[in-house]
């Protein structure tokens, strides 16, 4: 019982006991709710930890496939593929454009041929005329010109042979000329389409390479990120284990304050008033107030540790590490598509080659006819030269009777010379056709064959180099559903833990209120004049410390009684201390 200076005597005592009782109720509520909640935290946390471990185990084989050295080799491989594809495309376009010249040359060649054969037909007609004239002279001269008769036949045969051969060539040449424009137009259309197609492939390849560079740079960092992630998770798990244990320390701290309040309450209710009692009880209450403050700070800190752990694990759930599977799948899909496009490109080019061959082969028929005609022309030339020689002999033999024959002979000579020149020109024309088309075809084949082979090699190397990526993609595909499921469970567990942490936070307010109540009692009992002696302080220290179970409480006790430094909030002073006996 206190006698106070105010008129409220009895009321003041009851108020102090009421306040202490209220503080005790608050502390008991804190103890029971935090015991339940921390138990729930421990249970949920085990489940959470299991899911996190599962995610790491499911992700680990994918991450292992993405080794830094492998990733570093993929980009150069992809660049070589890109370079080979671009080289192939460039050479293809150039050689196709060069093939276009074949049509121009073919046009010239056809005109040349037609001109040649026109001249040959003209010669054939002359020959025919000479044959007729020769026949007339043979008839006029009678028996003396019998040996000249064969010349007339020779001339006739020459004329027929030449004109039929030339006509055959002319028909073929005209037919090719009539289709030339259409063929050239179709070829140009094909060329244009190919150019556009190649350009779009080049653009696509360029984009793929850029995307691949970015993605592979991200992938390259993932193994290290994964290690970092796993280490952070381990750290987070450690911090929750520590937080749960710190709650045990604050629990004991709170229980000891509760015991002290019961004793103080009993003392206030039972003892007669004395100044030193009031001062002593004030000191004891002050110690309890400081202990509660420490418990409150510790509680706040371990709740924060739990929340921090949850945030960390939540980040893992949405991190690149967990999403690696989806990235690898996308990357593998993108690269496979590009390889398929390149393969398609090569197949299309092979189909084009078949078309070009047909285009070029058409010339072959013309060349065969022209060659045959040339051979016949050479034969005719030789016969004409023989005829020329024989006709001169016969003309001499006939002497003055054969002035007309002589004239015919001179014309035969002229025809023979012209024919020889035409034959030579035909030969040169044919050689030009042969060499230019062979050059174009060979150049096209040779150039594009080399670059097509190079492209095929790079494509095969890239395909085999991507085997690891494909393997990772297969694992990602297989594990992806499970990883998603585990992440969803993770989120569920984290939500529950967050709600528990929020409830735990409410205990902070209760602790604060309990401390306020104790402080108010202390305010009413405090004396402005009386001071405790050192013996009395030691007695209080012994009385309080007797029940304490941690160095933290003892440090706080000494801080409250003697003004020693207060230990840092949230620490157990001697935490982690290990001693083996």
């Amino acid at each position: 019982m206190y006698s106070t200076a105010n008129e409220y005597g009895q009321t003041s005592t009851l108020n102090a006991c009421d306040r202490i009782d209220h503080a005790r109720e608050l502390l008991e509520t804190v103890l029971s709710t935090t015991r339940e909640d921390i138990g729930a935290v421990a249970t949920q946390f085990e489940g959470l930890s299991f899911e996190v471990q599962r995610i790491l185990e499911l992700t680990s084989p994918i991450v292992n496939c993405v080794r830094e050295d492998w990733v570093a080799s993929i980009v150069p491989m992809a660049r070589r593929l890109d370079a080979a594809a671009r080289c192939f495309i460039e050479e293809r376009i150039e050689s196709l454009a060069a093939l276009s010249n074949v049509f121009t040359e073919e046009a010239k060649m056809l005109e040349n041929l037609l001109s040649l054969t026109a001249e040959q037909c003209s010669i054939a007609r002359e020959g025919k005329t000479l044959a007729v004239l020769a026949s007339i002279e043979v008839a006029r001269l009678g028996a003396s010109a019998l040996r000249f008769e064969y010349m007339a036949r020779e001339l006739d045969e020459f004329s027929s042979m030449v004109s039929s051969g030339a006509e055959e060539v002319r028909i073929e040449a005209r037919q090719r000329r009539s289709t030339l424009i259409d063929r050239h137009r179709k070829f140009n259309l094909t060329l244009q389409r190919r150019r556009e197609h190649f350009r779009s492939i080049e653009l696509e390849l360029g984009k793929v390479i850029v995307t691949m560079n970015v993605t592979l740079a991200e992938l390259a960092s993932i193994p290290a990120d994964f290690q970092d992630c796993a280490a952070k998770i381990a750290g987070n798990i450690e911090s929750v284990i520590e937080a749960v244990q710190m709650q045990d320390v604050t629990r004991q701290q709170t229980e000891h304050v509760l015991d002290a309040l019961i004793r103080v309450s009993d003392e206030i209710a039972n003892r007669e008033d004395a100044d030193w009692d009031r001062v002593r009880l004030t000191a004891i209450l002050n110690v309890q107030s400081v202990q509660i403050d420490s418990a409150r700070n510790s509680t706040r800190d371990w709740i924060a540790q739990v929340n921090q752990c949850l945030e960390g694990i939540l980040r893992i759930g949405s991190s690149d590490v967990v999403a690696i599977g989806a990235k690898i799948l996308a990357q593998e899909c993108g690269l496979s598509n590009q390889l398929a496009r390149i393969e398609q490109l090569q197949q299309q080019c092979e189909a084009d080659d078949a078309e070009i061959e047909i285009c070029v082969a058409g010339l072959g028929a013309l060349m065969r006819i022209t060659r045959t005609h040339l051979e016949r022309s050479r034969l005719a030339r030789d016969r004409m030269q023989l005829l020329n020689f024989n006709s001169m002999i016969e003309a001499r033999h006939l002497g003055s009777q054969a002035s007309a024959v002589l004239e015919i002979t001179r014309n035969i000579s002229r025809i023979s010379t012209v024919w020889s020149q035409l034959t030579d020109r035909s030969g040169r024309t044919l050689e030009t056709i042969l060499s230019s088309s062979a050059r174009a075809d060979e150049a096209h084949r040779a150039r594009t064959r080399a670059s097509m082979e190079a492209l095929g090699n790079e494509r095969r190397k890239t395909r085999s180099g991507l085997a690891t990526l494909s393997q990772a993609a297969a694992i990602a595909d297989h594990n992806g559903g499970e990883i998603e499921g585990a992440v969803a469970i993770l989120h569920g567990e984290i939500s529950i833990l967050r709600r528990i942490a929020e409830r735990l936070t409410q205990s902070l307010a209760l602790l604060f209120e309990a401390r306020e109540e104790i402080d108010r009692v202390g305010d009413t009992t405090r004396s402005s004049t009386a001071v405790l002696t050192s013996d009395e302080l030691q007695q209080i220290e012994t009385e309080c410390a007797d029940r304490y179970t941690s160095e933290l409480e003892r440090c706080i006790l000494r801080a409250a009684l003697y003004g020693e430094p207060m230990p840092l909030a949230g620490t157990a002073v001697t935490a982690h201390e290990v001693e083996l006996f």
Partner: protein
Amino acid sequence: MKKILSVDDSAAVRQMVSFTLRKAGYEVGEACDGRDGLAKAGQSKFDMIITDLNMPNLDGIQLIAALRALPGYAFIPILMLTTESQSEKKDAGRKAGATGWIVKPFNGDQLLSVVQRLLR
């Protein structure tokens, strides 16, 4: 597989000890106070005991002394895991037969390191 008994009146602490040890491959039993711990040790053979100090119904020191008297428990490692760090308490623990003393909160890696060392 080595078997360890965790004795603590705080369920949450027992859970954390069990969680840490099970992850490392140990089989773990739990007891909620000294009396429960003594009973469980009698029913099943454990390779190590980890016990709190301040518990109702037989505190940690009393438990260790009783365990040392049980057949098969004279030499098995017994660790004290407690908030206490006073040298008087440690001495009492050593005299009772404790093998080692860890102050809470424990660090998981540290606990495992001590356990592995003592069970070798």
